[in-house]
């Protein structure tokens, strides 16, 4: 039997398969490369970068919840300068599309980061995180404000020729309104979803379990919500979607593609099984063969409603 074609197109971006690794769940690739061949995966999205290094939130940063976890890392990152000096040289050794995720506190910072980083040939595209719920100065505000998201999209587009993916917040009434403004302002794709705002308390001390009070909920618990958000976007806006949220196995990937995703990202599962991407890609291959699906991209938005 002929092998299925797993390659997918997300706007101008081409990936050898739809399985990317999500921002904040692969570091800068070093550790993951000890488990898997990064060249075998669709792409890698680096931890959110800000202009200057960020120390991040004090502990405790994570807490487990039923079929999920809350995190409030607070965008700990090395900053643009060290990223270019220390991290890119390592990542350059691989032949894997490198998507650089940017998070900032101001509109100007988003633009400035993109402007500096666009000079790096190793970077294939940008994913703009307008939706991190764990940074107090601004993150959440942007993600919940259609106008701000539009302005940021236009702003970063203006300073780079590389594709721009806007990572959307699920903590809104209608995520499709945000996808729409991204499209209008020239964004190339959206990724959905980032984490959902959640919290947990210690019942003896009455303090939040997470230092930051709120954290972002990820993992299988949020999968049904993420799928509904992807479907909402697919049904109302014509823009490529990278699906994210609770994906644990190849079956979940198929579900996200049927709902409208052109590609997907693995997040929390990497913590539990760093081999997951490879296992999943194999599973997709077998499924396509068995079902006689020649190109996996046929699945995108193939729901029957």
């Amino acid at each position, binding site marked *: 039997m002929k092998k299925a074609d797993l390659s997918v197109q997300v706007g101008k971006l081409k990936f050898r398969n739809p399985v990317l690794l999500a921002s904040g769940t692969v570091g800068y690739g070093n550790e993951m490369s000890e488990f898997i061949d990064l060249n075998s995966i669709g792409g890698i999205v680096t931890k959110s970068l800000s202009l200057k290094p960020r120390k991040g939130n004090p502990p405790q940063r994570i807490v487990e919840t039923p079929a999920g976890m809350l*995190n409030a890392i607070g965008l700990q990152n090395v900053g643009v300068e060290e990223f270019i000096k220390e991290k890119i040289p390592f990542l350059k050794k691989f032949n894997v599309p490198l998507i650089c995720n940017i998070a900032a506190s101001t509109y100007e910072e988003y633009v400035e980061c993109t402007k500096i980083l666009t000079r790096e040939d190793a970077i294939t595209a940008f994913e703009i995180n307008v939706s991190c719920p764990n940074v107090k100065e601004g993150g959440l505000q942007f993600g919940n404000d259609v106008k701000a998201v539009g302005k940021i999209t236009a702003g970063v587009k203006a300073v780079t020729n590389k594709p721009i993916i806007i990572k959307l917040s699920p903590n809104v009434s209608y995520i499709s309104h945000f996808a729409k403004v991204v499209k209008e302002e020239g964004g190339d794709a959206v990724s959905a979803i980032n984490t959902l705002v959640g919290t947990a308390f210690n019942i003896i001390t009455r303090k939040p379990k997470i230092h930051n009070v709120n954290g972002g909920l990820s993992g299988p618990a949020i999968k049904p919500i993420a799928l509904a958000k992807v479907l909402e976007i697919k049904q109302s806006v014509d823009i490529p979607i990278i699906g994210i949220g609770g994906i644990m196995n190849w079956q979940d990937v198929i579900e996200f593609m049927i709902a409208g995703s052109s590609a997907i990202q693995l997040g929390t599962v990497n913590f539990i099984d760093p081999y997951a991407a490879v296992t999943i890609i194999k599973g997709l291959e077998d499924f396509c063969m068995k079902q006689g699906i020649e190109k996996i991209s046929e699945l995108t938005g193939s729901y029957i409603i």
Partner: protein
Amino acid sequence: MFITKAPVEKVIELKNHIFILKIFAPEIASIIKPGEFLNVKVCDSNFPLLRRPFSVCDVEGDFIFLMFNIFGEGTKILANKHKGDLIDLLGPLGKGFNIEGDYDTAILVAGGLGVAPFPYFIRKIGNSKKIHSFIGGKTDKDIITYRMKNITISTDDGSLGIKGNVVELLEQNIEKLKSERIKIFACGPNAMLRKLRELCIRHNLNCEASIECAMACGFGICQGCPIESVNYPDKYLLVCKNGPVFNIRDVVI
């Protein structure tokens, strides 16, 4: 650092709620060092979702030993394993104890389950150094002496050994101990380690401590396990990668 599914050889109940898992895991047994840990998936399902970190307690040939108490859902599942069940282990992880060095006596300070990494430590150190173990717990029920050597005990309620906490116990003995070249190796709750740290600073003692905290990945990609560094106050260290064993003065516990 790899994943292996290793069969349980034996589940041993040491005391009420305190267990040892003996696991056939030759690849890990041959390379893991005292103080390093494994991140364990206690079952195949998504519940509980995350792995649980456990220090390697001992190694005997191709077998590794994990010591734990029933704390929550995950350790309950582990305690109910049967011979032949496969356990999913990720490791070896972290930076263990630095056994080598210019000292004659290793002072082991353990609070409760904090004894866990020391049987392997004692095995590895062999006869190259002397050992003195100080073990503390709330009551005699919490005192574990499994494969420990040259033991002095304290309990908060005085039900076994000296009444008081283990750092007080150590302090009572410190002048005598300091007559030799000593190095302290500690493991236990943060409250204990915090007191121990003060003691070490006061008495200018060399001390390595294994520190616990919540972890998601255990190998450096989630940034979930920060610890404040004394030397680099503008960034956190990661317990899972830079530790779990630290020079006790280098970190803010």
